[in-house]
């Protein structure tokens, strides 16, 4: 059992949750994740370890409640507990001092990006962080990321915060300007965003790392469900990744496999909606 010590709402459907998990807090490195199962009978899902405090023995998760499992997890109150949390899993991010780097985050990817930005800052990199969302309501962690970055640029699709458009806009400007061009780019977010970033940095040959989010079950390399095509090789994202060289990733294949259970997920989502509606009616 892993006790919930805090559960804050950062933005619509986005929670920051702190859990007691001393062994994981001690062992984890930036870029790693945990497999979480709320209770007996529930799904196992991967969530990035957003931050950790080895002294307090806690880890922080940023959870976007988008479907049945994530919604139930964020509903766990402070003092409540999560039955299973296993990790830290996946490879740690390869961190060095590149000098100038750009970190690009979209949606909940911004949360996954947070530990990377922190580790890159600690390694002495000069960081430009570009984060985006549909509107100001979906932009998260701006203050925290701002404190670690030399520049923080925000984009929103409706222009309600920062510049109007997508994260690729400011990134394109940086790349085009030899005085600002980054030596390395880290991109985490929806697959189309990561694909667009990879396409922008391929030509100028800028090292680009993406954190992939395929469907996972065990998270230990046992089931093969999380496989992604990277160059000529089939990789298991949970053990070989989740970070890969963006220029080699088959994003279309990844995005297609992510839709494997759309129908089943929609049914479960509707079922939890009904339950919530019934409880509200009562």
């Amino acid at each position, binding site marked *: 059992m892993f006790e919930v010590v805090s559960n804050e709402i950062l933005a619509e459907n986005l929670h920051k949750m702190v859990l007691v998990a001393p*062994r*994981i807090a001690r*062992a984890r490195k930036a870029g790693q994740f945990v497999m979480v*199962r709320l209770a007996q*009978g*529930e*799904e*196992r899902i991967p969530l990035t370890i957003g931050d950790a405090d080895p002294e307090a023995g806690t880890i922080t998760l940023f959870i976007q409640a988008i479907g*049945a*499992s994530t919604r139930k997890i964020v509903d766990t109150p402070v003092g409540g507990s999560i*039955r*299973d*949390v*296993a*990790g*830290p*899993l996946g490879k740690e991010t390869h961190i060095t001092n590149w000098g100038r780097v750009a970190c690009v985050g979209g949606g909940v990817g911004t949360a996954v990006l947070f530990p990377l930005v922190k580790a890159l800052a600690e390694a002495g990199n000069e960081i430009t962080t570009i984060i985006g969302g549909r509107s100001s309501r979906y932009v998260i962690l701006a203050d925290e990321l701002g404190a670690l970055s030399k520049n923080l640029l925000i984009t929103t699709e409706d222009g309600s915060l920062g510049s109007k458009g997508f994260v690729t806009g400011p990134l394109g400007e940086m790349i085009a300007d030899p005085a600002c061009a980054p030596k390395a780019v880290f991109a985490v977010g929806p697959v189309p965003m990561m694909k667009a970033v990879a396409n922008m940095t391929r030509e100028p040959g800028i090292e680009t790392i993406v954190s992939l989010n395929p469907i996972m*079950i*065990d998270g*230990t*390399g*046992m*089931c*093969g*469900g999380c*496989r*992604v*095509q990277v160059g000529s090789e*089939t990789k298991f994202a949970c*053990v070989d990744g989740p970070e890969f060289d963006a220029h080699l990733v088959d994003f279309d*294949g990844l995005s*297609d*496999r992510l*839709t*494997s*259970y759309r129908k*089943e*997920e929609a049914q*479960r989502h509707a*079922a939890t909606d009904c339950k919530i509606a019934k409880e509200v009616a009562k």
Partner: protein
Amino acid sequence: MSNDLSPKERMAIERVHMPELPADERSKNFEEVNQGLTPEQAVAEAQRCLQCKSRNCVAGCPVGVSIPEFIDALASDDLPRAAQVLRGDNALPAVCGRVCPQETQCEALCVRGKKGDAVAIGYLERYVADWAMQHPEGLIAIEAPEPTGKSVAVVGCGPAGLTAAGELARQGHKVTIFEALHDTGGVLRYGIPEFRLPKEIIDREVAVLSRMGVTIECNVIIGKTLTIPQLRSEFDAVFIANGAGLPTMLNIMGENLKGVYAANEFLTRVNLMEAGRRADSSTPILQRDEVAVIGGGNTAMDCVRTARRLGAKRAMIVYRRSETEMPARVEEIKHAKEEGVEFIMLTAPIAIVPTEDGWVSALRCQKMELGPADDSGRRRPQAIEGSEFDLPAGIVINAVGTSANPLLTATAPDLTLNKWGNIVADEEGETSIPGVFAGGDIVRGGATVILAMGDGKRAAAAIDKYLKR
């Protein structure tokens, strides 16, 4: 009941038939197919045993179960004694009685099998073990050991780890099992389906260990949460039994299409996560009318029979050799056929054909013929030119095998591995690191439950010796 039968009378008894659920009924649910012998059937079957002085059957059992002795007790209707004999040799008899490939082990060497049918040793073992589970009060009590003050870490809660933990606890050592998944049993839970091995049996075996003082910590991944060097410093000895959980890929076109599963994923979803077994299961699983399973082992049989139970109208085994070369237990092959599984033999997959929107539409195959024998003594399949054909399928499951998972070994550089990534251990299970032992599939590659248990037992004895040095 009297056990004073002449050899002639014993020879006259025919081998028992295991009562089974009817095939059309069971192919729609996950209930155990084999229902177990009745007391009368069990005693009569036990009386078929000739109590041979040569004890051929014992030589066929990898852990040397005292077969004639436990059968003799059963034939005399002395179940407490039968249970005691069995327990002394085999920590998980209710499991082995169900899943051992008896026809190639104990029963293969039974004298009665030379002319006619071997004694149904597996069925009898299961009968005694099930009786013991239901009659804990009838069992002969085992004395609690003196604590030795020594501690042992066991990595992995499969048959090898469970067996070693039990043996070590019996010696009075303090044992902690670390398991990566959220539940116990290893392949017994996530791999072998409920219709062959009810999960309740694993729960009961685990409860026995808990009562003996063994601590089980799930959600601890050795190599990630804690490392072997950490365990080495916190415990007096370590036993590694993390299995062979790494699926072998087919490396053919279309393997990443939607609807292509590795056997471990398919079985884990259904067995460990209850997908498709509970109406409101939170883990999804795909269901299609046509399911093609590639392989001929127990894993392939488990997948195809599971697919059938999830509603497949055509559940198919695609195997590149012929039925005689299939490594699966004969009983599984028989049950699969009764349940309407189609066997497409001498057929190898060459590609998976997609639909326009990225789903599986067919398995492209090639016909094979058997050529001369290869190193393994089995006749090598050779492709027949121009024999390609498409087998319509909505799901393709790859059940060709697994190998050593490097998650743990990658973080223990002092551990010597062979070229396939298996841990190198000596006869007694000792590895290249003093005080660190290993056994089961991580040493042998994919083997059997009883071999894994035998390793656990031998390693526990060696660890006990090491700790008393």
